[in-house]
């Protein structure tokens, strides 16, 4: 994972082709890494983005996990645009783990960070174009004409004198053609597939007919089912257990202890689950057994007294504060959150003496051979991984814990096992969006403009747990997103981060630390506008950073200030939302703006707040600048989805701890938005652009939260700084 967050991985790939099943396979490899081995491998394995069979089947490999965000369609679009094939006629397959499929923005074959399309943008178009050029050359050679006299379109190559062949016909010969060095790509004005507003998703029909295979739907011959009991305390272990009653239950094949629990393996899931409920287990609570939410927050507050690591500083913040006409201070407190995708964690594992097959809904297939190998004594190359459709991911499935568990259980019983977690297992054994305490202060000059800003956050570090090599000098790049790229022009500033292990497993959660930092910042900016007596939109516009100084830590962001894009988005959202119009009593509008993943979003939420401080989100208006849209309708779907996800988080989301374990076990205690709670109107606009694409799977999740918080203030006069925005928290705030 050494390449993680390094934005500037070289784009010049080594190109290798090889013949696969008599056709053409084309892969793009990063330079300097086992080139020979990889080239040899390409002839025998499907390590490629495009496969063209002699029977004219065109297969596009999707090397990212489809968890709703549309990679199953948006990535093939990129290939098809240059390959000149009809997307409705191509086959799509999920790719196995292989070096060729590494995401250069993340340094692993990993789906996350809203990077799939950003990473693929050139790579997959080049793959399509190279394959097309090789096919054309093969046809031209066959006809003894110059390639420039031939044209590829719709899966056919035409040549002079009405000559015509299918791609499949020349696929074998094309495999022998030298891979082109210069691969010109179409200008955006010639795009036919990219940006097509009518393009449908390729996976909809299977999903509508109940045929899409999710991990939990896996069935293999001889498969048994496992239900598990895991320690209720985070990090707890089995001390001892009595399985006599469980073993006596019908259908039970075995009861096995594995690293973090006890599994009952039976002929069906229900038999396994009923027997599991009869296990008597003594737990060793482990180091966190005494934790509860109060002690955790006390710990975070105490840690926040530490100076923290400086991740951005200029001017002299103390001097700036000293000269200020007015000072504003606030502390924002955001809780732990669960991912809770609709498909609970599960994996089907078949571990044998010399081989393991793992079928799993994962965001991180590349890691699985290594961890399963480690857990079972097999070599990574003996572990075969199949990625299924994912019933939601949201970052939870970057973790590989459940694949390891299933492998251990399968190994212990010597049979293929499908391990399925209950919702309770899933919610109490998640990795949680870290809680964070963010202390902000600002000094305003006489006109109300901030001349000094101080930001200090204290929060568990996800990367310190998962990818310690990317944590430098006490700074986790995934803890400072959404604030490292502070978008305003403030002469004196100091931004610091204090890492603190709270005894609750922290995990990457859709939008990661944007959901902490940008939420606190954009609420705080609203406080400043209010203190200055200024309109919150104009206030922001007037102080945008129009400079070009690079941010050090924003690995997945634009990396430089995007003042002009923000200004435009804010102006448009002001016009489109009806900002400033008279609203009924108890209604209010709030604004927020953010750049994340090189996407700029300005959002206005309109809410109503009842006398009991119940909040209803009436309308959300968003203006989005995400560069080129590959699949416009699904870009819209991602905005709809992220707004929903962020709304759930900020209005109800809270994981609390008691006796070292998570208190919430199911959707009755962990409330998420339902149909009747979704905003009545979602008005989403994309700014037309032909710039490189920005990410869309995450940023909306963060922006909606301060927009709602600020709207609550506008509607009720209550500035709620403790999330979620529950009636109790709103009522208790100033």
């Amino acid at each position, binding site marked *: 994972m050494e390449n993680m967050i390094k934005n500037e991985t070289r784009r010049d790939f080594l190109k290798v082709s090889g013949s696969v099943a008599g056709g053409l396979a084309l892969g793009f490899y990063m330079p300097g890494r086992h080139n020979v081995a990889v080239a040899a491998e390409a002839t025998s394995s499907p390590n490629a983005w495009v496969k063209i069979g002699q029977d004219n089947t065109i297969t596009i490999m999707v090397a990212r996990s489809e968890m709703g965000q549309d990679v199953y369609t948006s990535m093939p679009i990129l290939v098809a645009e240059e390959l000149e094939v009809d997307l409705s006629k191509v086959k799509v397959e999920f790719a196995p783990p292989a070096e060729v499929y590494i995401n250069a923005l993340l340094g692993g074959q990993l789906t996350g960070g809203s990077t799939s399309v950003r990473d693929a943008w050139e790579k997959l178009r080049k793959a399509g174009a190279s394959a097309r050029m090789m096919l054309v050359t093969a046809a031209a050679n066959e006809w003894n004409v110059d390639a420039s006299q031939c044209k590829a379109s719709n899966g056919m190559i035409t040549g002079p004198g009405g000559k015509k062949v299918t791609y499949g016909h020349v696929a074998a010969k094309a495999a022998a053609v030298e891979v082109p060095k210069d691969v010109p790509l179409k200008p955006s004005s010639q795009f036919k597939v990219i940006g097509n507003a009518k393009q449908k998703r390729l996976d909809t029909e299977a999903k*509508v007919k109940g045929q899409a295979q999710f991990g939990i739907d896996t069935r293999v011959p001889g498969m048994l089912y496992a239900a598990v009991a895991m320690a209720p305390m985070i990090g707890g272990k089995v001390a001892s257990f009595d399985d006599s009653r469980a073993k006596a239950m019908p259908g039970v094949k075995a009861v096995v202890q594995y690293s973090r629990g006890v599994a009952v393996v039976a002929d069906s899931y229900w038999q396994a689950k009923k027997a599991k409920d009869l296990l008597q287990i003594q737990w060793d609570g482990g180091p966190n057994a005494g934790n509860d939410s109060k002690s955790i927050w006390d710990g975070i507050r105490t840690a926040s007294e530490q100076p923290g690591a400086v991740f951005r500083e200029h001017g002299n913040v103390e001097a700036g504060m000293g000269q200020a006409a007015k000072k504003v201070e606030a502390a924002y407190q955001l809780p732990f959150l669960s991912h809770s995708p609709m498909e609970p964690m599960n994996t089907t594992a078949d571990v044998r003496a010399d081989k393991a097959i793992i079928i799993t809904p994962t965001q991180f297939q590349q890691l699985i051979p290594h961890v399963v190998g480690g857990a079972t004594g097999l070599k990574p190359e003996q572990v075969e991984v199949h990625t299924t459709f994912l019933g939601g991911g949201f970052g939870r499935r970057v973790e590989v814990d459940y694949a390891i568990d299933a492998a251990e259980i399968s190994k212990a019983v010597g049979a293929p096992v499908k391990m399925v977690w209950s919702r309770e297992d899933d919610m109490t054994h998640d990795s949680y969006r870290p809680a964070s305490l963010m202390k902000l202060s600002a000094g305003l000059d006489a006109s109300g403009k901030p001349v000094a800003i101080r930001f200090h956050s204290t929060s568990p570090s996800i990367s310190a747990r998962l990818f310690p090599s990317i944590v430098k000098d006490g700074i986790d790049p995934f803890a400072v997103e959404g604030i490292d790229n502070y978008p305003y022009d403030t002469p004196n500033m100091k931004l610091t981060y204090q890492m603190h292990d709270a005894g609750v497993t922290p995990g990457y959660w859709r939008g990661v630390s944007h959901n902490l930092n940008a939420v606190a910042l954009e609420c705080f900016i609203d406080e400043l506008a209010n203190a200055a007596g200024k309109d919150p939109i104009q206030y922001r516009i007037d102080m945008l950073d129009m400079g070009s100084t690079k941010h050090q830590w924003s690995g997945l962001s634009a990396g430089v200030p995007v003042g002009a894009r923000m200004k435009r988005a804010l102006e448009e959202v002001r016009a489109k939302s009806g900002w400033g119009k008279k609203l009924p009593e108890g209604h209010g509008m709030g604004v927020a703006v953010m750049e994340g993943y090189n996407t700029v979003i300005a959002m206005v939420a309109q809410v109503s707040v009842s006398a009991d401080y119940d909040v209803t989100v009436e309308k959300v208006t968003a203006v989005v600048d995400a560069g080129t849209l590959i699949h416009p309708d699904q870009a819209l779907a991602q905005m709809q989805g992220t707004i929903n996800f962020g709304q759930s988080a900020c209005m109800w989301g809270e994981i609390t701890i008691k006796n070292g374990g998570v208190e919430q076990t199911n959707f009755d205690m962990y409330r998420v938005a339902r149909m009747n709670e979704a905003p009545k109107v979602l008005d989403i606009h994309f700014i037309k652009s032909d710039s490189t694409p920005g990410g869309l799977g995450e940023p909306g999740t963060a922006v909606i939260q301060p927009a709602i918080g600020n709207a609550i203030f506008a509607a009720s006069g209550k500035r709620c700084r403790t999330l979620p925005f529950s009636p109790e928290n709103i009522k208790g705030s100033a």
Partner: protein
Amino acid sequence: MKISFNVNGKSTSVDVAPDTPLLWVLRDTLGMTGTKFGCGKALCGACTVHLNGQAVRSCQTAIGSVSGQKVTTIEGLGGNHKVQKAWIALDVPQCGYCQPGQMMSASALLASNKNPSDEDIDAFMSGNICRCGTYPRIRAAIKQAAKMA
């Protein structure tokens, strides 16, 4: 215990404990995995099927109580049901996991209410969670399906 019932127009009999939820009989015993498990507590609607035409949560429906009854699952909706057509037309699913349950609820709603208002849709559909946030499209698709003959 042998229990006979009708699934998607076919008489079927299974030999399972009568307290086994219909959900697991469909998924494990009969291999019909279109019906999904989300919460096991009647909280999410992922497991929704029709029992004699009514939407029920199959995770809370013991197979013993289904004896002699008619069950319809997503596989039995036929693929050409107006709800499925509308779902396809509007590309409703994202991850898709909740969608069989959503469509079984929506089709039960439309069977009893030909032209549901927003309030009717809210009341009927709020038992079905979608974490991907497809609610705006579900609402639009139900309205579109209502307009189909």
